[in-house]
């Protein structure tokens, strides 16, 4: 108690020096926390986007992941409805799973033959209402995160409707029809330049594909009343035969990442199955699970594995971090930047405290001698100076936490936006202090410990001083 009182008063006595030291600690804490909050915003934002579109866990037929794209029929999941039911009815998994939905992933060529444009695409066949529900996932309450999302144009009751990426819409010449922003008409020369280069091949293919399309479409009554522009999707069926379906593009959606934006076609599951499996058995390539909370992922995964084993299902699981390799890269990159900042700040704090406490010990040498003569043990002297370092750390780190909360609040209020790397739409920039409670506590504690460590060396020197020498020092 007296130690505490003396420590406080000595800190107040050297107000200027204490203030400098505590400022250094506060600035260190602020730098670490603001960067940590920014990092949390990026990582959790990335996670939210990823999970809202692709779910947490993807269940594939064993081998699909490595070989399946080449033979989706062999690696499809046929009994997907019963697998889905098995999962949602499971007493452990059921409560964890927010959405369980089958999907078909496929690749092919999309053509808008009205303007002679075609492009390879990556198609996903989804259950529209499930896709819509998944898109709402926002477990971290990132305000404004989904604000730019329009309600999806896909409908459960209309298999022919589809959505495409903004980039793909532009490439296929659908700028006006889909009201795509920032989409100038192609230069006049482009069409005439390429036409002579392939004088006969291009029209031939177009004829062939439209032939196919007509042939395939005939059994299904065409909904030609649709107000949407139509494109044709060509893909190889499971059997290897070319197959074509027609898609009414109801909407162009931003896919955030350019590569995806230039390739994405979202369609009804049934349409994708028709394209991929033709008249054969309609399977799905993946069963996507979206959980309520990312923290449940490991538990859910283990339970799934047990379930598959128990029912002799030949299925394997990938989580979103495995399917999105950038996730770990982003995490690793920011992690190392954070460590870099933390190390620099810690070293600065350490040296500042060592310096401050050394000066304090020097100035109070005579006092140390007096206290020792009066009967204060070595460890009492050590405790005195440690306490002072600890208090400097405590006040500095607390001020830093407070400061970073205030700065974060100001930045979040001001509505700053930024363009994340590789993305195409500006995103509001938030400093997610609420996303990093452990980081706040850790930084706070860590800096206090560092301040105490910095005080330890001078405190030990003070404790070891021979009493007589200390007393002779005036």
């Amino acid at each position, binding site marked *: 108690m*007296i130690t505490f009182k*003396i420590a406080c*008063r*000595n800190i107040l*006595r050297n107000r200027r020096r204490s203030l400098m030291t505590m400022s250094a600690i506060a600035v260190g804490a602020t730098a670490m926390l603001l960067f940590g909050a920014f990092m949390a915003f990026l990582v959790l934002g990335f996670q939210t986007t990823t999970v809202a579109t692709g779910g947490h866990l993807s269940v594939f037929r064993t081998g699909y992941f490595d070989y399946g794209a080449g033979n989706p029929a062999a690696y499809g999941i046929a009994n997907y409805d019963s697998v889905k039911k098995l999962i949602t009815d499971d007493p452990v998994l059921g409560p964890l799973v927010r959405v369980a939905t089958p999907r078909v992933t496929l690749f092919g060529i999309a053509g808008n033959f009205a303007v002679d444009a075609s492009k390879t695409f990556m198609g996903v066949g989804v259950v529209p209402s499930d896709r819509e529900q998944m898109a709402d996932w926002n477990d971290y309450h990132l305000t404004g995160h989904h604000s730019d999302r329009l309600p999806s144009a896909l409908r459960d009751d209309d298999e022919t409707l589809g959505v495409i990426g903004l980039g793909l819409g532009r490439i296929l010449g659908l700028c006006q029809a889909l009201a795509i922003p920032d989409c100038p008409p192609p230069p006049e020369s482009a069409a005439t330049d390429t036409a002579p280069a392939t004088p006969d091949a291009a029209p031939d293919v177009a004829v062939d594909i439209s032939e196919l399309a007509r042939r395939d479409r005939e059994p299904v009554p065409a909904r030609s009343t649709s107000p949407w522009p139509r494109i044709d999707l060509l893909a190889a069926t499971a059997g290897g035969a070319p197959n074509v379906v027609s898609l009414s593009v109801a909407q162009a959606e931003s896919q955030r990442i350019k590569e995806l934006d230039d390739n994405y076609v979202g369609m009804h599951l049934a349409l994708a199955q028709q394209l991929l499996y033709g008249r054969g058995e309609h399977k799905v390539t993946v069963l996507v699970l979206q959980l309520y909370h990312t923290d449940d992922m490991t538990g859910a995964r283990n339970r799934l594995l047990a379930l598959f084993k128990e029912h002799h299902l030949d299925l394997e699981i990938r989580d979103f971090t495995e399917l999105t390799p950038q996730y770990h890269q982003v995490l690793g990159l920011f992690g190392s930047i954070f460590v870099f900042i933390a190390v620099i700040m810690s070293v600065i704090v350490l040296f500042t405290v060592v310096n401050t406490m050394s000066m304090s010990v020097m100035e109070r040498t*005579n*006092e140390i*001698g*007096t*206290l*020792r*003569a*009066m*009967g*204060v*043990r*070595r460890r009492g002297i050590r405790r005195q100076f440690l306490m002072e370092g600890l208090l400097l750390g405590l006040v500095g780190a607390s001020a830093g936490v407070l400061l970073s909360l205030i700065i974060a609040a100001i930045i979040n209020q001001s509505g700053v936006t930024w363009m994340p790397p590789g993305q195409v739409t500006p995103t509001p920039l938030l400093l997610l202090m609420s996303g990093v409670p452990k980081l706040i506590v850790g930084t706070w504690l860590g800096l206090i410990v560092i301040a105490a460590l910095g005080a330890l060396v001078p405190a030990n020197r003070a404790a070891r001083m*021979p*009493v*007589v020498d200390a*007393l002779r020092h*005036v």
Partner: protein
Amino acid sequence: MSEDAGRPAVRLRDVVKTYEDDGLKVTAIDGISLEIQRRRFSMIVGPSGSGKTTLLNLIGCIDTPVSGSVEVNGEAVGALRDDRLTDFRARNIGFVFQNFSLMPVLSAYENIEYPLLLLGVPARERRQRTLAMLDSVGLAAQARHRPNQLSGGQKQRVAIARALVKRPEIVLADEPTANLDSRTGASIIELMRAEQREQATTFIFSTHDPQLMSFAEDTFVIRDGKLIEHRAGAMP
């Protein structure tokens, strides 16, 4: 207590203390043997550099001799480890320094209370004794003042109160009046003399100011680290 009566407060035997200063060996205490009687007002006198401070440091158990033995209050302090020795000082020895050496961040009251905290005296008793001590050195009105708000004489009164409040066996005062003008110095000596009588403690006091030596009950004269004279009473 009564069986202690004949035992001296301090007994030194063949004590030698040397300092190594830049390779130069200085013999500060050169084989001193002496006994200082309990409950006396004893004075160590000698010219500057004669070894008074060194001798008091050895008696006060804050320095150790190169050879010889130091016995304080019947305890052979040379055998004690640092923590034990520190505790021994806390219980038995009060210090008054030439430069007062008060804790600048503590008030007069808190400075006097501090030794009682070290001894773990309960709060109520601590308060009583501290207030009584403040009163007897005539500083009741300055209880809340910090050292920098006190005059030199007042500071030394606080220091005396701080040394006496724990009722130590021995109080050591190394030139306690050297930083005071002669009138203030005289009043400080009188105060110490009065307190020493009242508490019946052993007071050991160093000075080279002949004006103040007249208060001594026992006088030890040292020169060049050697005891050259011991006489009961003051120097003539």
